[in-house]
């Protein structure tokens, strides 16, 4: 089954005519994702290797009926592009763009909640979503993952590849890998994605990869104890991060005594979630828990 993206995905891409946008769109199509169009104002009527380009999301919806949007436009245009896709009725918006102002993210989050409750936003500043064997929307290198029963949700891209690769080397695969992004106001939280994995038949174990800053991991711990029956293995990055310093991601910052890795690991462990101290340990725990459940070959 997998979650969010699969064979039914109909993807359109804002920023498809840019260098990065076209490169990754074509990569996604090569993987088997059904790419139905792109949106670049002023370039409607053109095509990118056969993929039609539209001037607006409304036009893309009329002519190609996408159900998934990928946002690849520069930060200053990203908020409007997300909202325009939502207004056109796109159900899932995946925003890859890094560097969107926090106030724009706040406005987008609250506008979607109020005016477009049917649209789910993943990201921004995220690597996207991969359901191995089904569809890839974003920049996750698919070759490191195979199809299986581990659901992964993470605030960081490369860290996800590191953990996923170790799980794959041990012979296990993934249902879906979801990057929720490293910004202060992500469109979807750990809790939102945990809810989907809990309901997904293919997913038998969930790996949650968090980092310093905010309280999303603490909220996840609460949610897991009340609503998740599947085993969850967690990792938290940033134990050695000094307070007050932004560690790469806009959202990765310890504010005073809040948002530390130690507090997050503690909150998760208090709710019975096993927390690995290194990515390798996380993979090892996941494999140990899965021990009796061999993955069916894709």
């Amino acid at each position, binding site marked *: 089954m997998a979650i969010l993206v699969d064979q039914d995905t109909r993807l359109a891409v804002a920023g498809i005519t840019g260098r990065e946008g076209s490169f990754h769109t074509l990569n996604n199509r090569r993987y088997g994702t059904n790419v139905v169009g792109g949106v670049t104002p002023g370039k409607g009527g053109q095509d990118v290797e056969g993929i039609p380009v539209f001037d607006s999301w409304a036009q893309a919806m009329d002519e190609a009926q996408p159900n998934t949007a990928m946002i690849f436009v520069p930060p200053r245009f990203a908020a409007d592009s997300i909202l325009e896709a939502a207004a056109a009725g796109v159900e899932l918006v995946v925003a890859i763009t890094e560097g969107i102002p926090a106030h724009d993210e706040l406005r987008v989050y609250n506008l979607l909640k109020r005016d477009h409750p049917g649209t789910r936003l993943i990201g921004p500043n995220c690597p996207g979503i991969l359901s191995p064997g089904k569809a890839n929307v974003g920049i996750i290198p698919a070759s490191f993952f195979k199809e299986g029963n581990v659901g992964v949700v993470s605030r960081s891209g490369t860290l996800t590849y590191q953990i996923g690769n170790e799980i794959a080397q041990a012979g296990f695969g993934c249902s879906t890998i979801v990057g929720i992004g*490293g910004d202060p106001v992500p469109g979807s939280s750990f809790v939102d994605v945990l809810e989907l994995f809990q309901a997904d038949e293919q997913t038998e174990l969930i790996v949650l990869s968090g980092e*310093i800053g905010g309280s999303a991991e603490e909220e996840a711990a609460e949610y897991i104890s009340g609503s998740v029956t599947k085993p969850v293995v967690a990792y938290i*990055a940033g134990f050695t991060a000094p307070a007050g*310093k932004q560690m790469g991601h*806009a959202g990765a910052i310890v504010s005073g005594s809040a948002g530390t890795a130690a507090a997050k690991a503690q909150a998760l462990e208090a709710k019975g979630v096993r927390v690995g101290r290194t990515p390798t340990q996380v993979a090892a725990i996941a494999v140990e828990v899965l021990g009796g459940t061999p993955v069916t070959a894709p």
Partner: protein
Amino acid sequence: MDLLEYEGKQLFARHGLRVSPGRAATTVEDAVRAAGDVGYPVVVKAQVLIGGRGKAGGVKLAADESEARQHAQNILGMDIKGHIVRTLWIEHASDIASEYYASVLLDRSAKRPLVMFSVEGGVDIEQVAEETPEKLIRHHVDPLLGLSREEAVKIAADGGVDGDVVEGVADALVALYEVWTAEDATLAEINPLIVTPDREVRALDAKVSLDGNALYRHPENQSLSDSENEDPIERRAKEEGVQYVKLDGDIGILGNGAGLVMSTLDVVAQAGGSPANFLDAGGGSDAEKIKQAVELILANDAVKAVLFNIFGGITRGDEVARGLIAAFEDVKPSVPFVVRLDGTNDVEGRRLLDEAKLPNVYPARTMDEAAEKVVALAAGQPVGAAA
């Protein structure tokens, strides 16, 4: 981006929030002139991005010129918890009847702006929140509507301010919210917000953090920055567009992706080492960027060994290898390097490194092995043959 007090006050004044007349100064003579201009008595305040300035002796009242000169001499160059004072703010001293607290910040959990207010100002607000939470008003604002005057009046009244200053405090809260939204701040805090004996409401301090991602739409704020209080290597990294944070240890770290680099710091610490920096080379690092990153890491004299931890997604292992080889030709590092290359084009990258036979470069197959090796090397222990 954290602003100094006087920079924050400039933003306050821009939006109609009252502050005392004052001027910034960087020399003793400058400070004395500023004091004369704003009028005695004055307060001489150290401008550093750290709390506890008063206790450290960085805030002093001066009744006349000789006292102003004395305090300026003492405070300029002072080391306050590792922050050297390079700028003073000279402000006309205020008479104080009451001290309140007010702030607007981004509540990441609620995904809304949060206005906080308390009549217990002038003290550590986390302590107030802990010991007398009923004295801290917390009010979430709908960011699509903004903070209305009615809401602000209610916050002031609920907070228990004297009846005659409810209006004045509400004005200050509305102005502070305006600072937060119009300047793309992530934090705008006043502690204390004072009431003078003639019942005027005024910001006596300012703590403002701006969103670096939004600076493009605030050209007037681009010159405001904490750069004078910043580490010189961090400043250089910022100019070069590299994500670099200086740390206290002796092991230089480079990786691709913020999460992987944070994780690498942790794994090195667990292996008994102490990282000297955070450096995210980012996605798609080409050879030139890698060379630049190596130079930044080695600009820190404390570095005794360096760990490259690359898991290539967009980043290609062969590119990283070429960058490292180019960097060695130019920089000729004198410290050992441990290199772990995995992911996209890793085989080709490792082959390039093998063939280059760089002096003092040790390959590692896993992240844990790489951490153990670099910790040993930094401690001067042998770890087997170099590449």
